[in-house]
């Protein structure tokens, strides 16, 4: 999670198994929505930004259906936990931990995310 103070020139990065991966410019993200990113090992991540500017990434694969769709769900806050609701069968996943809020036995991976200013790069 990161609080974005940076400007349009900033880049969002996800920590995958091969290290930090630059995914997209920060302004490509719509607050309250996600996008999908393809990681070098072929897995998919769902990257979100909330209305306060915090970014999150979890696995894109919905474990209930197997479809790669979590990036297309609606986000929200429940008891202070940021979540995305799967667009298929609506189970909610904690954006910070990947834990499923509706079924504690299920979870998806959570990835570290950071925003790098153009200057730092």
């Amino acid at each position, binding site marked *: 999670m990161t609080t974005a103070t940076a400007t349009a020139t900033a880049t969002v990065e996800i*920590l995958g198994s091969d290290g930090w991966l630059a995914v997209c410019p920060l302004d490509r993200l719509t607050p309250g929505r996600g996008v999908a*990113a393809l990681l070098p090992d072929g897995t*998919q991540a769902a990257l979100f930004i909330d209305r306060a500017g915090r970014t999150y990434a979890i696995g894109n694969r919905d474990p209930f259906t197997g*479809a*790669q769709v979590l990036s*297309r769900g*609606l986000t929200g806050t429940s008891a202070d936990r940021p979540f995305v609701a799967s*667009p298929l069968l609506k189970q909610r996943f904690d954006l910070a931990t*990947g834990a499923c809020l509706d079924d504690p036995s299920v979870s998806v991976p*959570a990835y570290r995310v950071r925003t790098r200013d153009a200057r730092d790069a």
Partner: protein
Amino acid sequence: MAAAASPTSTDTTRPTVVLIGHGMVGQRFLEELAERGVTERARVVVLCEEPRPAYDRVQLTSYFAGRSPEDLSMVEAGFMEKHGIELRLGDPAETIDRETRTVTARSGFTVRYDQLVLATGSYPFVPPVPGKDHKGTFVYRTIEDLLAIEEFAQRLMQKQDVPSGSVVGGGLLGLEAAGALKGLGLETHVVEFAPRLMPVQVDEGGGEALRRTIEDMGVIVHTGVGGKEITAGEDGAVTGMELSDGSRIDTDMVVFSAGVRPRDQLARDCGLEVGERGGIVVDADCRTANDPAVYAIGECALACDGRVYGLVAPGYEMARTAASAIAGEGTDGFAGADLSTKLKLLGVDVASFGDAHGATEGCLDVVYADSRSGVYKKLVVAQDGTLLGGVLVGDAEAYGTLRPLTGTVPPVSPEQLVLPAGTGGPVALGPSALPDDAVICNCHNVTKGAIRSAVTEHSCGTVPEVKKCTKAGTGCGSCVKALTTLVNDELEASGVTVDKGLCACFPHSRAELYEIVRTLRLTSYEELLASHGRPEARGGDGCEVCKPTIGSIIASLAPSVGADGYILDGEQAALQDTNDHFLANLQRNGSYSIVPRIPGGEITPEKLIVIGEVARDFGLYTKITGGQRIDLFGARVDQLPLIWTRLVDAGFESGHAYGKALRTVKSCVGQTWCRYGVQDSVRMAIDLELRYRGLRSPHKLKSAVSGCARECAEARGKDFGVIATSNGWNLYVGGNGGADPRHADLLAQDLSDAELIRLIDRFLMFYIRTADRLERTSAWLERIEGGLDHVRDVVVHDSLGLCDELEALMAAHVAHYRDEWAETLNDPERLARFVSFVNAPDAPDPSVRFVPERDQVKPDLTVLAGPTLPIRTLEGTSA
């Protein structure tokens, strides 16, 4: 149920109770027996003349409003089996032998009884008019009668434009029958011998108000005359009716509704005493006067107070009394019953209660009459102010509270009780003002106290639960409004906060949020959450419930509140469900389906070819939908813009299959081609679809237009359905297929094109304004207070003065409609979101794969399977 091997049935081990007649009262009697455990210790045999188990005769006419015979059934599934009751359908009793205590039925089946109960009801009285048996004459009592009337009327319709039907009798049932004929599309006459309609229930003033309103509906009323002769043509079918004043009605069918007579023939034949004017004589326990083993209940009985009751509530009371007597419990005896009625005749409220005719000595009348609006209200009060009774015509709102107040001195003056709202003195005397022993539900004799204790002691938390627990509201339904108020008051009083909030973020209902957005012209979810959200939710991200709901409200109101009509602009984009966000329907493997709009189901060969080519070129699975259009499945998100570019070029536009919005307006081929069609249903369907396309609503909206009453477009299964008549269009609302099907109710008839569209405009905007989230029109209509009548008042009679505004909102919607897909394609920024991966825009999603199936494709679900990954906790966060 066919007779068993032996035609004589004996079971010597257990006493036997035999019931003759399985009507409303008979069924209630069985329920009362079961409740008292009698069905466990005794054998119970029921002889039923009709081909179906007991049904709700009171609601008979609702068959024409779309309720099926099954809907009308009064027998809960499994009831007979559960209680071991032997029901013999279509096998009427023919003789009773009181010596041997046996009953023999038509099939030859004979059964010995220990106790016999007659609940044979009444038969319709047909006056001895010459020609009463011609082809085309009917009575109005059973489902079979209705089916015969309907079939005959439909045959007339095929032969002539507007056939005519006449009802003999202008009482309660006669007017119901007239309503049914009118609804079937016939020119309708009512002939009543008395000088006014409903002579038994209403007084002269009420009769006048009723007449005016009913005439305004196009029913031709003849009072003070009787039918003298019914004439027939060469084929033996009715051609007309001569009246006692020498005039003549040209008519093609006649329905007799000139009163009922008790069916007491069986009793007469076996020597039981019957009254001078019919009715089996019984005592306070409902036992027949000359045989303690035989009882009579319901309309066939002449009760101990010397009356034959033609209403269901007293019959239920008798059923209870007889069941207690048979169970060997003491009974309070049948003490006579109230003759109050509230009816909805041809859409006019008519109610009478207590001493409606002012027969009590020295009583006074308080009358309010408004001939313009057809409202007439009279209260009868004693000198000391005690309310004795009354008549309400045109507006019977107050019936639910006035009837239980009968016999008491109301807390406000009678003048205030009859004056309409807005005249300075209206008093909304709610049910809360009633004492605990006031009877709220007359049909089931349920008091206010019983309703309250259903909430407080039996922990019923909703109106349906209270209905189930107390039976209140399950008869004629006239008490449901008062019941709802009482239940909600009681819930609130017992500290249950009925949280009407939409979700954990907002304490408001959807309808309230709509009003907030509309009046404050708020176009931002963020602002709305900050100003109106629950304190704990402010500043958060909202949730998946309120975001799309508010997105939809803003979209419905867009032109009027100054929001951009395009649902994916700015903050709005974040509010939409995934389907709206990608303007397509998400499928199980993450691919999307595409449904172009095909208004009215009409499509040119050229357009069909384009759809075929697009499907072929993109490898899409193609299927004709249930909504008269074509669905293309299996598109990846990155293919959507390419596919739509070709579709938009060919003149297609979004079909909103993904949105809570207007879906399709189906049509039949109509007058242009069909030999039966009476209007151009295709043109109307296309007009409607183009008018309402893109309209965002609380749930999806469906419609259909049929070219005649054969209804090939299934309009009555739609949220708003239109059926052509020879005079214009009938508009039906609140239909639904799906999990809980409901036939739409008639809102208005014989409308011109312009009237039709105006009413639909108002109806839809009123629905959008007041419905809950994901509440189809059918559920909404069932839920809102006042139901269909209220909606009709608002959208037809403009009772809330809202219609101008509703029409203006719709006009703004129509003027601002733009095709979402064309808009999207025109803007590269909007297109940028249609990629599988933000970091690899050209890479297709490898998990979206297909395998062959019946010459097309289907999703390859095997690529989706895989182990779920373990949770990966993050300590701290990166900067």
